[in-house]
């Protein structure tokens, strides 16, 4: 039998043993090992210093990194603006539960399936032939020629980003919706009686009160944008100037088996996520304090 004191000290670690072992195996050890491999050559044998990182920020890789920057800016902002719209307006209609349900539905769908679903929206036939893609058919109604949504530069990146917006808007709406419900109804009613317009109420009363939730939406969506892989892999496989670093990593790993390059890309991803991790840690500490 253990002495009482030792038993008490050891007990939490006994409970935590299995969870910690798993996390160390699947997350902690690989992070450290990837750092090491990122400084080695393609076969992870000889040390090559910072060569892989120099590769990652030069030549064709610059376009890939640039696409990720576009994702990192456009995706969270579009999602946020649309979610402010849905959360605010849904709050004012009687069938809010139905509206919420509809925006939640896509959040249950995988990025892979979401991409398959959107092939029907973006499908393109040369001008003159009947358009079977939804968007081009609508354009045709207005006499506008078809757009090759997945091929035309910049347009195709935005088209891919919008698939992610469709899939994730429900999450952003839920977060903002619950924040808006916590803004005092009496306060808003009083402002309304004073003759304040809806836009004014939104800007000077609702928005300041839900800022923390806006931050949560942004950080959540930045992380999604950072590791986006499925949509690009399924829709274009990185062709037509749509490649992103997570897809490039898959390519380096499988098509060319360059472990050094793949690891350097992974480390860049990790470092890009670091600011968000710090924001979350500060927020977490602030909440945990009595």
């Amino acid at each position: 039998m253990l002495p009482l004191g030792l038993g008490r000290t050891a007990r939490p670690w006994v409970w935590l043993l299995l969870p910690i072992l798993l996390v160390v195996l699947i997350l902690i050890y690989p992070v450290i090992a990837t750092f090491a491999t990122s400084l080695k050559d393609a076969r992870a044998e000889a040390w090559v210093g910072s060569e892989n990182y120099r590769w990652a920020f030069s030549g064709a890789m610059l376009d890939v990194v640039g696409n990720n920057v576009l994702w990192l800016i456009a995706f969270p902002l579009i999602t946020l603006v649309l979610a402010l719209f849905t959360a605010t307006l849904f709050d004012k209609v009687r069938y809010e539960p139905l509206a919420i349900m509809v925006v939640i539905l896509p959040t249950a769908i995988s990025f892979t399936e979401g991409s398959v679903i959107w092939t029907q929206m973006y499908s393109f036939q040369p001008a003159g032939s009947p358009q079977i893609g939804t968007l081009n058919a609508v354009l045709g109604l207005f006499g506008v020629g078809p757009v090759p949504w997945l091929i035309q530069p910049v347009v195709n990146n935005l088209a891919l980003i919008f698939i992610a917006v469709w899939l994730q808007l429900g999450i952003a709406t839920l977060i903002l919706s619950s924040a808006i419900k916590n803004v005092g109804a009496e306060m808003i009613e009083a402002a309304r009686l004073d003759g304040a317009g809806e836009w004014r109420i939104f800007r000077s009363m609702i928005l300041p009160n839900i800022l923390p939730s806006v931050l949560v939406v942004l950080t959540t969506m930045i992380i999604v944008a950072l590791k986006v892989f499925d949509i690009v892999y399924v829709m274009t496989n990185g062709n037509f100037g749509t490649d992103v670093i997570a897809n490039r990593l898959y390519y380096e790993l499988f098509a060319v088996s360059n472990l050094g390059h793949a690891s350097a890309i992974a480390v860049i991803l990790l470092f890009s996520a670091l600011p968000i991790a710090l924001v979350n840690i500060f927020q977490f500490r602030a909440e945990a304090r009595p």
Partner: protein
Amino acid sequence: MSETIPQGVPAPRPVAFARTVPSSGGRTGALRWLVHAVVAFIVLWFLPILALLLSSLRPQADTATSGWWMALVRPSYTAENYLLALDQLRIAGSLGTSLAIAIPTTVLVVLLSVIGAYALVRMNFAGRTALSLLLVALLVTPPQITLVPLLRLYNLMGLSGTIPGIWLYQVGFTLPFGVFLLRGFIALIPQELFERAHLDGASELRTFRSIVLPLSRPIMASLGIMAFLWSWNDLLIPLLFMGGSSMSLPITVNLAGMVAQTTQGQGPLMAATFLSVAIPLVLVISLQRYFVRGILGGAVKG
């Protein structure tokens, strides 16, 4: 833990969706406009799912020559796409593999998370704060950082191409979120309950089984839904770790492969996709309350 409600826990009135119809009647014009805007928006947002369902039911010849909306104009439906998907695309096997991955993953994530969260919240030990902060940092770790070493490790350990290998990965990767979500909830269980159990001479294990487990059931359900969805919807990990397996590929991997080759035509692909979104959609519709709580409670990750 203080009296303040930490983020990991539903606020007193999380999303009540109460009727908040504006009381004043002076802006009926603006209101009607607003109602139209919301109706238009939800119709647009639902359109892709409707398109998926209709395309999956249209005869091959129609799909090749006209858009999905023609199924509404000239209705003509068939189940042949579903038969083709099940027969030639081996969708039943894929759905089976996906279930064989997702169900054990879900059970293990929930079990290990509640154990970890309990130890983290209830027990005072050196390193607890550091462990909590590490947990929060791990929430946003991209999965890509783990791939190179784990592919090698999996090959060494013979885990590549096996279903238990995927369980191991997904459980390890989802655990930080699970512990994070549950710890906020368990921290809200009144202190007196534990003190009384302690006075009654209940052991740590007994307290866990008779207080923590029953009280945490709703949040465990939330975690369960999210863990299932993540596992079911994951493409990257099965794509990398199930390669070279003789089993049916998981549904996401199978679908991603099908998009590239158009030999089968759109119909069967849409039927296969509809079958694979059916399970998550039914889950989220029927257990919406728990799903919403999981999203709000774990909002730091998403």
